[in-house]
């Protein structure tokens, strides 16, 4: 059993039913990290985060400290928090905005101080109605408490935080699409370069975009030091991380685990974590990091939950969501549903993604419903190759953003791992699992 006794960094308050209130937050050490930060210089705060080597928790895993260092010096700059969590089977930020909004607000304020940014936008997914209300209520309380607004805690630093509701579009999780949406436009990702909004972001000004979970780690890092955070985990994957476990497991949920020290096997099967697969069934496959990631089979279950380890094995830890599929799952149906999702959520700017996702979905549907042809498998791979040439990992890109190259992941994995199943669908004219 390798479930370590690492401290709970972002989920420590979830044992309380009133974890979202200011009273509970203050009673459990709330806003102390911010006070400590305000007594330091902004550079020292940024240095502490850099020492922690906190990797961005949104999916790309870019070190937050390095991202901050790229912020172009300018009289006007912005900090935008990405709470548009929409990657299928990812539900960690949902938990954080609903259950511990003050922790998010404190993290945001620490980041704003370190970056000397006076205007912050917290972009929360529109479907989180309760989350939006909780963050707004937390901000109202924080303003009244003197933690936000002008001259916070008498430090001379002033900052304004605005909660911005999204309106339902997966693509707005892409940081440049999020900025477009925040400017009141369609969520179309922007052409790169510039590769980072730190150079040209919101309204053309330098902007840092950080994930909700990344921000929620900051109060602990300030209180305990970056070195204490970096001491957890291994290699580049430091600290703890939220893993969202869903699909065919007895105890689906969000688990905070030390990076690298725990394996997929522990997460799925340990009684205190996933608790195994229901009905005594066997594992067929699992998705290690959101539906954009290639699948793993039972032979890779002993891989550790670390960014580089999963990357080296040919997939990604991505948004930290693990979907478990038991041996009664139809692989064709699962990958068809994922393809349908991408087809629906493609923003429509780039031809390979817009057209490719639609065609792939139609071909997958006809295989699943028993109207497939044997040459469809090659056709699928050919279409995938047009979106991400070579079907390598990490994928080659033909589109403005990475949504396009994410589409072939599930189809490629399903065909590679379960080619026989596709052929049975085609030969028998239907799904054998129905």
């Amino acid at each position, binding site marked *: 059993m390798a479930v370590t006794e690492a401290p709970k960094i972002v989920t420590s308050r979830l044992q309380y039913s009133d974890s979202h209130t200011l009273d509970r937050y203050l009673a459990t050490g709330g806003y102390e990290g911010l006070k400590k930060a305000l007594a330091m210089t902004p550079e020292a705060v940024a240095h502490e985060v850099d020492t922690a080597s906190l990797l961005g928790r949104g999916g790309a895993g870019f070190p937050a400290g390095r991202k901050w260092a790229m912020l172009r010096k300018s009289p006007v700059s912005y900090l935008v928090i990405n709470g548009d969590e*929409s990657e299928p089977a990812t539900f960690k930020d949902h938990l954080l905005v609903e259950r511990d909004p003050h922790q998010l607000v404190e993290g945001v304020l620490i980041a704003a101080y370190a970056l000397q940014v006076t205007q912050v936008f917290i972009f929360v997914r*529109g479907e989180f109605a309760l989350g939006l209300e909780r963050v707004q209520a937390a901000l109202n309380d924080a303003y009244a408490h003197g933690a936000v607004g002008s001259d916070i805690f008498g430090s001379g630093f002033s900052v304004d935080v605005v909660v911005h*509701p999204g*309106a339902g579009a997966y693509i707005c999780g892409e940081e440049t699409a999020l900025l477009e949406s925040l400017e009141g436009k369609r969520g179309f990702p922007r052409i790169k370069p510039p590769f980072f909004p730190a150079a040209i972001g919101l309204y053309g000004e330098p902007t840092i975009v950080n994930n909700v979970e990344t921000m929620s780690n900051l109060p602990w890092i300030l209180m305990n030091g970056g070195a204490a955070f970096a001491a957890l985990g291994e290699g580049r994957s430091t600290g703890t991380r939220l893993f969202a476990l869903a699909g065919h497991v007895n105890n689906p949920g969000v688990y905070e685990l030390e990076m690298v020290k725990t394996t997929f096997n522990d997460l799925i099967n340990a009684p205190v974590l996933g608790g195994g697969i229901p009905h005594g069934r066997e594992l067929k496959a699992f998705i290690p990091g959101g539906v954009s990631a290639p699948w793993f089979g039972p032979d890779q279950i002993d891989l550790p939950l670390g960014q580089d380890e999963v990357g080296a094995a040919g997939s990604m830890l991505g948004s930290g969501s693990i979907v478990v599929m038991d041996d009664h799952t139809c692989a064709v149906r699962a990958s068809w549903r994922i393809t349908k999702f991408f087809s629906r959520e493609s923003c429509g700017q780039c031809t390979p993604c817009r057209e490719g996702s639609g065609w792939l979905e139609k071909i997958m549907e006809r295989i699943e419903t028993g109207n497939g042809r044997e040459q469809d498998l090659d056709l699928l791979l050919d279409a995938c190759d047009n979106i991400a040439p070579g079907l390598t990992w990490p994928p080659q890109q033909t589109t403005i953003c990475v949504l396009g190259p994410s589409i072939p992941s599930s189809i490629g994995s399903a065909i590679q791992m379960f080619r026989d199943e596709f052929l049975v669908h085609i030969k028998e004219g239907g799904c054998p699992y129905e």
Partner: protein
Amino acid sequence: MSEQARRTPVGPPRRLGTPTPAHLSSDVLERAHQLISLYPEPRSALIPLCHLAQEQDGWLTPEAMADIAGLVGVTPTEVLGTATFYDMLHTEPVGTHVVSICTNIACILNGAAELLEHAESSLGVNAGGTPIDGTITLEEAECLADCDRPPCVQVNHRFVGAQTPESFDQLVAELRAGSRAADIPNHGTLIRVRRTTGLVADPEQVASERADMAEAQAQRAAAAEAAKTASDSAGAKS
């Protein structure tokens, strides 16, 4: 098209919505102006204003879009073009309760397709449809991020937990009877908590705060510089 209209393609400058909002109520307008004041550029308030308009009407009417266009300084077509991009903004009427059933990967592995099929047959409409009484609109949703309670169902973007076909029918009956009104407001009402501070800032106060802040920063920089010089000279001595 009349001859006159065809001959004057350039015509007057483009119309930026209704000059004075005519459709939105005075309460909504007041909140709209507050929202606009929160952003450096008015257009950023476009989506929050669309949510507000939906709160008033239940959906995004052409009249409301014209008003919003006037408020943020774009054309009504730009509001429409933006709104149609987003799943939550409905440019056609919907029921007072939009019931969303997620059928994405975590939910479809746990009976979401069967639940949606049941919902379609019990409500008598396909996903996207509204039964004739206008109380319910059924939606097939993408992942709603409540994957530990599959199949995930939302009513007006409020989570109601995992549903079985039986509990779903009961939920629909409750919604129709209005007995869930306390925790689930009508469609369109998104955020019931209003921002209580920082709505109206005094420009002079802002300017003086900025000046104070710049001074504090300069002092900190000077202190850091002095500390650095001190340590440098200490290093040079040793």
